């Protein structure tokens, strides 16, 4: 029955056959050999006294038994037992070492040497904590480290860091907790072992058959319960470990909220700066040009009778200014909303940006970027602003724009051979770029030594949208 059931359960539970048909590879010290336990269980549940159970639905009994004993073949349950067993060992050992080290440090504080050992002491505590976190991985708990403060020059700052003391607290709690949890988690295993292998007791039972039967039945039940208990208590222990040593979700969320709100400030500032820039461009650029054109036309009108040659000259001037204004308006519109980006894509949009430039600017865009819309717009904006900066300030002879992708990110690199010395803290251009990059959770780095060259690198996630905190 058992071997047959094992293969069927393998198939249904999706385990790899190799693992579950063999005894668990890293089986902990206590559990009985699987062969023996199987023999015991079949004796207890079906084989021992058939006469009593005549008329039972054996298929159903087999199904129930199968279900009850299936976890015995679950390698995770044996890992859980191993985790508890090792933890019961490391808990007191780590605690003892910590207390020993602590006592030494405390003792030496009075001769000042101990002050230098405070940092190493907390370092040792951190190592133990890391070991406990690593062990929890066996039962499927990947506990990221809880951030601790910087240790400071001599490590003294550790002593005021509540996160460091939290680790100490964990080791103290764990020295009691780990053995207790191991006791609970392995209770059923030890019961089975006692009944099956405990010669003295078993011998006693044999003289009283009813008691023997009862004990065997109890052991049979316990055998199925054992992996379940081990799993339950192992998870409980891992959870407690995670609570002490894992990151605080609330703190992470708070951190994220404060990052987001400072980013939002940046974005609002950038939007305001952008509006001011547009207003200025309209007022000081296009409007002035229109007034100047009007002035030329007004003068031409005035002169047309008296001095037709002069009037013609003025009309020519007016026409030139109209062309200038159209160019400026186009530039302005491009900075506001890149219609070409939607219509023709990033490559075409960026080519249009550099097409009117006074220096050669090479554009290379990876054809297979797969960007979400807001990221594509950000890429465009960053490149557009960076190129505008290059043309305005860098005095460069050539420049390049390169947009490429890697696993999760898109990388925008704008390079020029100009005079460098870009101060990233000054100017609304860079601040605007930075705010836009942060808005999609990207990062921006600028390298611009005096004398050049200047390289601006923006790295953005390719897909940006709702994300988990």
């Amino acid at each position, binding site marked *: 029955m058992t071997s047959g059931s094992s293969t069927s359960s393998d198939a249904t539970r999706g385990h790899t056959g190799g693992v579950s048909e063999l005894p668990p590879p890293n089986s902990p010290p206590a559990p009985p050999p699987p062969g023996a336990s199987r023999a015991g269980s079949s004796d207890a549940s079906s084989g021992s006294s058939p006469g009593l159970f005549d008329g039972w639905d054996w298929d159903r009994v087999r199904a129930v038994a199968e279900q009850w004993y299936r976890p015995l073949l679950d390698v995770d349950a044996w890992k859980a037992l191993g985790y508890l067993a090792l933890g019961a060992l490391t808990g007191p050992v780590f605690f003892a070492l910590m207390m020993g080290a602590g006592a030494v440090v405390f003792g030496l504080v009075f001769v000042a040497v101990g002050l230098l050992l405070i940092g190493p002491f907390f370092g040792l505590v951190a190592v133990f904590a890391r070991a406990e976190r690593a062990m929890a991985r066996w039962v499927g708990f990947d506990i990221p480290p809880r951030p601790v403060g910087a240790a400071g020059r001599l490590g003294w700052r550790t002593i005021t860091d509540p996160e460091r003391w939290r680790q100490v607290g964990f080791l103290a709690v764990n020295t009691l907790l780990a053995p207790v949890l191991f006791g609970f988690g392995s209770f059923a295993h030890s019961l089975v072992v006692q009944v099956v292998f405990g010669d003295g007791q078993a011998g006693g039972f044999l003289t009283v058959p009813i008691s023997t039967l009862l004990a065997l039945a109890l052991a049979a039940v316990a055998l199925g319960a054992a992996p379940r208990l081990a799993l339950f208590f192992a998870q409980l222990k891992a959870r407690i470990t995670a609570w002490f040593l894992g990151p605080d979700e609330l703190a992470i969320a708070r951190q994220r909220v404060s990052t987001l709100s400072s980013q939002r400030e940046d974005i609002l500032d950038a939007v305001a700066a952008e509006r001011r820039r547009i207003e200025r461009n309209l007022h*000081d650029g296009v409007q*002035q040009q229109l007034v*100047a054109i009007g002035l030329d*036309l*007004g*003068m031409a*009108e005035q002169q047309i009778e008296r001095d037709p040659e002069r009037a013609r000259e003025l009309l020519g001037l007016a026409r030139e200014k109209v062309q200038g204004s159209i160019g400026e308006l186009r530039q302005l519109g491009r900075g506001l909303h890149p219609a070409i980006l939607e219509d023709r894509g990033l490559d075409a949009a960026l080519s249009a940006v550099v097409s009117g430039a006074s220096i050669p600017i090479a554009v290379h865009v990876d054809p297979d970027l797969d960007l979400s819309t807001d990221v594509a717009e950000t890429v465009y904006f960053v490149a557009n602003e960076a190129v505008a900066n290059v043309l305005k300030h860098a005095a460069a002879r050539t420049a390049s724009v390169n947009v490429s992708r890697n696993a999760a990110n898109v990388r925008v690199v704008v390079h020029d051979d100009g005079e460098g010395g870009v101060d990233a803290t000054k100017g609304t251009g860079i601040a605007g770029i930075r705010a836009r990059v942060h808005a999609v959770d990207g990062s921006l780095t600028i390298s611009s030594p005096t004398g050049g060259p200047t390289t601006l690198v923006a790295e953005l996630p390719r897909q940006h949208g709702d994300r988990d905190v």
Partner: protein
Amino acid sequence: MSERTLRVVVADDSVLLRDGIVRLLNDSGFEVVAAVGDADALLDAVTEHEPDLCVVDVRMPPTHTDEGLRAAIEIRRRTPTVAVLVLSQYVEERYAAELLEGDVAGVGYLLKDRVIDVDDFLSSLRRVAGGGSAVDAEVVSQILGRSKRGSELDRLTPREREVLNLMAEGLSNAGIAERLVVSHGAVEKHISNVFMKLGLDIEDGGHRRVLAVLTYLRAE
């Protein structure tokens, strides 16, 4: 008015517009003694050349807010003989009020696009240089619109309101007659009606009248 060539300093940071105004003035019998791009250069040029008139843009570097206006007020304080015509991108009553607060003789405040109407602009320039004033029609209508004297103004006929506006802009009786294409006598009749209906007590024409009208309109 134009027996003597008027000497002018032009201050505007937009090169296009500055060049345009300089060209216009040179073509129209003014002498442009300096054309500058910011307020400090303007003050220096005024000290150096002692011109008859300055044409000043309100927004100039470095902050592009009201440098030109500050400079204009400073010029009026230092050298009251130098007339100032301030050009603004948009009309702001506060600017006008600051500029016209004291003596409005030789002060003008016009919307920048008025330069397009070349003849009107030139006559405003000559009026201001001759000790008159020029207040933009837009400013006047803003002041009128906000005036608490609504009920009293309602008693004016449409023609009389037009005349009131033009007086506030700084036009002389002759200028008003020309603008409205009516006779000199008709203008005088309208003006005396306005004064009577509003209870204003004004002895003669000129800039004092402008001030009186503006003061009246702005009063609570």
